[in-house]
């Protein structure tokens, strides 16, 4: 079916939008898996799954044995567990034991149908209609209907709910925009056209877990959801346990139980793994070095759009001059950072959120490389040939302090003297509003961004002139117009053309430096198989089996 000689068969599957992708596939711009992922995005789910998309988990399950307990370490959740408010990786992993989305954005297979079976957009990509899977039950025995889905999304876009998804839906979906069509059908009337909207109802928006219409915010008491496990016990600050959900709509979970313990320290997680007390722990570069190449452990990684964004205040001296911004970006040796700091578990970035994992990314845009001579020339042109002093403010998290030191050393080569101000994470984010947050107010800063299935949230929130996370204070009408073109683009080719224009503009303007996109990883014992996860911290354990 998917041999190049069968192109005409592929063309018969759908209309023009699909055929543009088929053209790209025929010309070799698109790989088979990317074509299948695109099929899923536009709702050709039957075709995608018939070609093997999304069955990797099931295939593993076939060889797995039922039973056993999966023992998992997570970091300490940062707040009370509530899908509407959740932002931290530990809470996301915890919720993903019981909660499900309309779609799952699988790192390998792209969008997979979960509580939604099929979806389609109208001609303008402004109204999207989702058909729900029948026979899905919440853990309390009630069936999932369109009313629950409408209530879930209405809550998420309601400012009064304090939802953490408000930034994601800003300018895209408003209160009243989610419509009940019938018991199994929901329609979304968007504020503006968006061809990537299915990603916004997927696991990419971690808060979009489908909850009952009468959900009262008491998630910690019930952990109510539709997933393959249901709550056994939850002890705040200590951990949680889950048991197999016998009424699950899909293939029943293989393990009998999942036991999760919270740890404050990655060192303790590694020691417990080494002592045989745990099967799965979070990845940190230090933990990875600890398990090294020992065959008793596995490091599983997925390619992601996770990155550390360096923002440069475009409205304040000295970065108001784009030549200075470009100069700083040119001092950075990205290959060395990927090899030395990230131990190869990353790919080089090109100062835009368009990661190579996105099918819309234009690969023809030239890659920025270290060029100290050019950096000095630009500084000279900008009138700061002797360099300047600037403070880089950032958070004490992950490898960011080390990355900051490397940027400081690289910049020194062009005469830029960077002072570091490394703050505890809470202090760095402050209240996350302009005027009250070192993150959003600093002249130069580094902020970590988790994976998303499309670059849309990065492009809207961090670069649009009205963006809520626009730490660079980038105010460029051309960019805003190009972003609108990108959002409206219905087919992959149009998206890629718009993406290329944005990528080139961002290279020229350089409001951000994105040196790398990190892989997302977890460390497991070699005795377990079938551990799956998304690059945004969901931990899927229903297909786990023991050797």
């Amino acid at each position, binding site marked *: 079916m998917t041999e190049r000689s069968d192109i005409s068969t592929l063309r018969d599957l759908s209309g023009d939008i699909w055929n543009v992708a088929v053209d790209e596939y025929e010309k070799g711009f698109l790989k088979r898996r990317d074509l299948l992922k695109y099929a899923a995005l536009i709702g050709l789910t039957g075709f995608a799954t018939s070609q093997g998309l999304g069955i990797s988990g099931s295939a593993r399950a076939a060889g797995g044995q039922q039973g056993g307990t999966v023992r998992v370490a997570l970091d300490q959740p940062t707040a009370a567990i509530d899908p509407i408010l959740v932002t931290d990786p530990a809470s996301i992993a915890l919720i993903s034991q019981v909660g499900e989305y309309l779609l799952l954005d699988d790192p390998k297979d792209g969008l997979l149908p979960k509580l939604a079976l099929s979806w389609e957009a109208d001609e303008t990509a402004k109204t999207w209609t989702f058909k729900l899977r029948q026979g899905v039950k919440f853990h309390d025995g009630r069936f999932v209907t369109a009313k629950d889905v409408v209530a879930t999304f209405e809550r998420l876009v309601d400012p009064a709910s304090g939802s953490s998804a408000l930034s994601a839906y800003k300018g895209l979906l408003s209160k009243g925009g989610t419509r009940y069509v019938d018991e199994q059908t929901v329609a979304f009337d968007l504020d503006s056209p968006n061809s990537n909207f299915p990603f916004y109802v997927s696991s990419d928006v971690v808060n979009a877990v489908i909850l009952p219409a009468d959900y009262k915010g008491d998630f910690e008491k019930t952990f109510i959801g539709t997933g393959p496990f249901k709550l056994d016990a939850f002890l705040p600050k200590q951990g949680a346990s889950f048991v197999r959900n016998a009424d699950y709509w899909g293939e029943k979970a293989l393990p009998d139980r999942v036991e999760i313990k919270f740890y404050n320290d990655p060192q303790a997680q590694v020691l417990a793994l080494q002592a045989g007390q745990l099967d799965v722990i979070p990845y940190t570069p230090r933990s990875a*070095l*600890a398990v090294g190449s020992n065959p008793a452990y596995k490091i599983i990684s997925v390619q992601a759009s996770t990155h550390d964004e360096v923002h440069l205040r475009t409205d304040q001296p000295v970065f108001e001059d784009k030549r200075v911004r470009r100069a700083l970006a040119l001092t950075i040796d990205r290959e060395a950072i990927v090899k030395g700091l990230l131990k190869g578990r990353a790919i080089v970035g090109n100062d835009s959120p368009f990661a190579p994992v996105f099918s819309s990314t234009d690969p023809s845009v030239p890659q920025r490389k270290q060029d100290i001579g050019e950096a000095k020339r630009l500084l000279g042109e900008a009138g700061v040939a002797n360099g300047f002093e600037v403070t880089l403010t950032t958070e004490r998290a992950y490898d960011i302090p080390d990355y900051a030191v*490397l940027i400081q*050393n690289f910049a020194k080569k062009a005469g830029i003297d960077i*002072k*570091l101000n490394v703050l*505890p994470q*809470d202090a760095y984010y402050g209240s996350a509003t302009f005027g009250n947050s070192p993150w959003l107010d600093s002249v130069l800063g580094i902020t970590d961004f988790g994976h998303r299935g499309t670059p849309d949230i990065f492009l809207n929130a961090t670069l649009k002139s009205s963006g809520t996370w626009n730490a660079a204070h980038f105010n460029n009408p051309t960019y805003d117009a190009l972003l609108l073109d990108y959002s409206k683009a219905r087919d992959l080719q149009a998206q890629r053309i718009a993406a290329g224009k944005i990528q080139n503009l961002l290279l020229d303007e350089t409001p951000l430096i994105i040196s790398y996109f990190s892989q997302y990883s977890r460390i497991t014992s070699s005795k377990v198989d079938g551990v799956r996860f998304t690059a945004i911290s969901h931990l899927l354990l229903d297909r786990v089996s023991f050797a």
Partner: protein
Amino acid sequence: MTGDMSLAARQAPVDRATSIRRVVERFAKPPVVIGASVLLFWLACALFGNAFVPFDPYADDLLSTLTPPDGLHWFGTDQLGRDVLSRIIVGSRDILLIAPLATLLGVVSGSLVGLILGYVGGLTDIVGGRILDAFMALPFVVVVMMTLVAIGPSNITVITVIGLAYTPLVARTVRSAVREQREQDYISAARLSGENALSIMFLEILPNVRETIMVELVTRLGYAFFAVATLSFLGLGIQPPSADWGLAIAEGYGFLTGGMWWVVLFNSGAIVSLVLATNLIAHSLGAFEDSP
């Protein structure tokens, strides 16, 4: 001191020559010599370290990260490929600047408070004493951490916060010593000769409690070294890319389970040597006998 005060001065219980002799006797002891030598060594490193480091302590080498100790890098390299030995040599700079200044601030302000409370006595002493007790009941590290988080970490903040945290501790000790002195005959003589309260406090009593203050100074200095290192370890003190030892331990701690021990071991050793050296001197000055 005026002629009228000479009587009081002559009656002071601690004779200047005796005092000097006692100090010399104490400093001639082996623990003091060893302690002072170690302190001087680190002081030399702080002042002139850059002149004799084998590598640039701040230059990264991303192709040689976390290499174990060998002939080239005697103490190995850290996670950015920086030479650990070179960083330990220059890493003494921040701690040797911050800890003494913080101690000085704490001892000066604590001595002032102690002097006033001890001399004035009465209701002022009772109320002031209870306030000092209340401050001392607060856990030191928690208070310092909360303050640093609230106002943001910087060298000046760390000096101020540690200095202020030490103030009640020093004040209580000095107050006890002052109260003892206040009852002495030479103070009565000074009062009879018409000296005002400020003169009595600063010119009569202060010289006679200076030993207590000296002991307090050295003892607190040892604790201050430890406090600065602890705050750096917790990420609330000195900022990267400083080669500060506490910061280096915090950065290298996560590599221990991977068998990469050298960053933590050598930096810990440096802190231990500094604290031990200070404690050896403090012990010889009678710190542990006299202070609470």
